[in-house]
């Protein structure tokens, strides 16, 4: 729907709210205080712990306050609120030109350091800190770098646009990642419904060594890393293991672009491309937005909310999360804003399970959603663990297919959280 819309840079907001928890893992530690002036790209919160990421100021301006603000769920999270100065001043050492820098001067160690310093996280949706992925433990043999060009969900087109418009930068980013990982082969997996992107990338990839582009069958959830590995190199990631264990590292195309900017231009992750879409919107858009911009301004840009808005979802229709208010900022993990009308947002009343086993047929991980759902509901975490609840990738296929409209994914997610807690407790004891 929005695949034809070129990426537009979104203007700076008057005020930006930058949460310190934009990634998976420990919240970053705030370095600035009220009244401080910050430059664009300045470090404002530092990593705290192994799995954590730096947060940089996306704006030039004054820190209004460091306070608890309401996030999309309604709970309070710590954030830095900045009054934005329209006159931008960039932090020194950041290359803001649009020249393509092909030559990679950094060595593997520097690459990891730069990615870490510039706060790059996985932009596919999980926001896993990227530098952790590059720190391959001793004894693991990595053969392939897999680049995820499968748009993770229907409706979203931000990755598609990025592949068309920033292919060169992306290729350099992939080369940087390959150098960081010491791998010789990189495969970009793109679904066959984006033929223009495949053609364009193939054309570009011929100029770079070791990068191939593979068209993939169009199906959901192809964008899950385990599914992608299976489709591209026909290996299955065993239960409880990581892609590392089958010799792969998977990164998103947007992450590859962010890596290019971080390593070649020394630019921290302060903006991202996202899709604003919806059937009833006046127009749809792919926007390059600074982190911290309120979602309400993005919606104003596309002509405001239609009257029969049922839900505003951050992310895609399958795994996205509904927003409780539009006064929430764009964060590193916001891949898109989807406005659903009432009809789309309507949910049927759950009826009893009829044991049709449709959910087990569609589960890409080969699990039994109907069973895990009940374990989740009953809080029977030990049985849930035995039956592989932790392998669920939360794609939502079971929910989509259920003829009884049962809230399978919801309870599985809940059970997964409880089981994860149980496992962590067991480890710490």
């Amino acid at each position, binding site marked *: 729907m929005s695949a034809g819309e070129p990426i537009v840079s979104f203007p700076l907001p008057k005020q930006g709210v930058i949460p310190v928890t934009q990634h998976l893992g420990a919240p970053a530690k705030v370095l600035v205080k009220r009244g401080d002036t910050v430059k664009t790209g300045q470090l404002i919160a530092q990593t705290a712990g192994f799995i954590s990421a730096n947060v940089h100021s996306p704006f030039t301006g004054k820190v209004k306050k460091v306070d608890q603000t*309401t996030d999309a*769920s*309604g*709970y*309070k999270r710590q954030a830095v609120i900045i009054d934005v100065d329209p006159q931008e001043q960039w932090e020194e050492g950041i290359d803001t030109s649009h020249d393509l820098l092909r030559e990679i001067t950094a060595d593997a160690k520097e690459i990891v350091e730069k990615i870490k310093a510039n706060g790059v996280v996985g932009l596919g949706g999980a926001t896993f800190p990227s530098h952790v992925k590059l720190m391959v433990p001793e004894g693991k043999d990595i053969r392939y770098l897999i680049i995820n060009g499968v748009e993770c969900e229907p409706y979203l087109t931000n990755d598609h646009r990025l592949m068309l418009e920033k292919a060169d930068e992306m290729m350099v980013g992939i080369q940087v990642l390959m150098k960081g990982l010491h791998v010789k082969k990189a495969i970009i997996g793109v679904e066959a419904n984006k033929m223009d992107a495949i053609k364009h990338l193939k054309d570009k990839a011929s100029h770079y060594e070791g990068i191939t582009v593979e068209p993939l069958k169009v199906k959901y959830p192809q964008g899950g890393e385990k599914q992608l590995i299976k489709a591209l190199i026909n290996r299955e990631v065993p239960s409880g293991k990581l892609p590392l264990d089958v010799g792969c590292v998977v990164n998103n195309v947007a992450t590859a672009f962010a890596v290019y900017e971080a390593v070649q231009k020394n630019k921290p992750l302060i903006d991202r491309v996202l899709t604003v879409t919806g059937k009833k919107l006046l127009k749809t858009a792919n926007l390059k937005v600074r982190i911290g911009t309120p979602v309400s301004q993005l919606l104003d840009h596309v002509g405001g909310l239609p009257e029969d808005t049922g839900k505003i979802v951050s992310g895609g229709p399958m795994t996205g999360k509904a927003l409780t*208010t539009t006064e929430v900022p764009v964060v590193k993990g916001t891949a898109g804003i989807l406005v659903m009308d009432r009809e789309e947002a309507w*949910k049927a009343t*759950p009826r009893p399970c009829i044991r049709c086993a449709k959910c087990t047929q569609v589960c890409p991980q080969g699990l039994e959603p109907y069973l895990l759902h009940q374990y989740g*509901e009953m809080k029977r975490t030990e049985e849930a663990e035995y039956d592989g609840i932790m392998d669920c990738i939360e794609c939502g296929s079971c929910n989509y297919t259920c003829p009884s409209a049962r809230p399978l994914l919801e309870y599985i*997610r809940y059970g997964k959280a409880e089981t994860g807690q149980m496992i962590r407790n067991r480890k710490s004891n």
Partner: protein
Amino acid sequence: MDQVILSAVVSLGAIGGTAAIILYFVARQFKVIEDPRIDLVDDKLPAANCGGCGYAGCRAFAEALVKTGDLDNLYCPVGGNDLVAEIAPILGVEASEKAPQVAVLRCNGTREHAVPKVNYDGPRSCAWAHSLFAGEAGCPNGCLGLNDCVRSCDFHAMYTDKDTGLPVVVEENCVACGACVDACPRSIIEIRPQGKKSRRIYVTCVNTEKGAPAKKSCQVACIGCGKCVKECPFEAITLQNNLAYIDPHKCKLCRKCAPVCPTGCILELNFPPRKVKPKTGKTPDQKVGKERNTTEDDSKAAESQSAKSQSQNSDNSPKPDDKPGKRASDSDSAPENTEK
């Protein structure tokens, strides 16, 4: 023919006899010595197996009772004091009276007080909703109204009020087993002493936010101003994380705290109406208690009384977190026009 019968009887009798002798010795050898009082106590227990005592079931509780003989610390909330009186002679110990307890809901976020700003259409489970978002009204600590507690109750002591959307405890049926306390993901329900004539005073709020955001999501939220703490002559009220808590064991039910509360989050239950009648009608929003009649005169009188009591309790000086005047402007902010 006779011989067939005779041989059958003799041989079967011999087998039976041998088996009986073996069984006799085996039984003696492997005899499990069990205190006969366990069975006696078990018979008296209500056999509800609710787990309210903290044991796996009534039998396990009976074993623990007989083993320790400790009637002061082991208590069956279902059987109550009557049961203690029955069991005490079996165990040969003195029966001690325990104050009856009851579950109370520490939230008054009705649809009127805490106006829903978003619509929730997910699974009807508090546990899931709690992990997902703050709640329809935006209060991160308040009742979600999805009835996990009502479903957990084995004694028909809870139901949901359709108008307010909040669960209600039926005092007559409640045995204070604590199942609802465990079921609530937000720890809103508390087991408190029932009190004489069921008279109780407690704070009907568990919101730990500061005054302004708390009041934004709910009109009757505790804003942590500390007025009640100053007012209390018995040091029964403590303020932690912007939230007042009344210690039921220190509280003497003097009713001085409720009138000074600017939001009306202190609930007085089953008290007779106050004597001083209201003169003029500039009362703060206090719809909590059924029998509440608070006036400005009343609170002034209470204040003068508190001045006396304060001089006695000089170390009773908490800091008010927010001033009440600030809050009035926050409370009238319009709900967001977004839907979930």
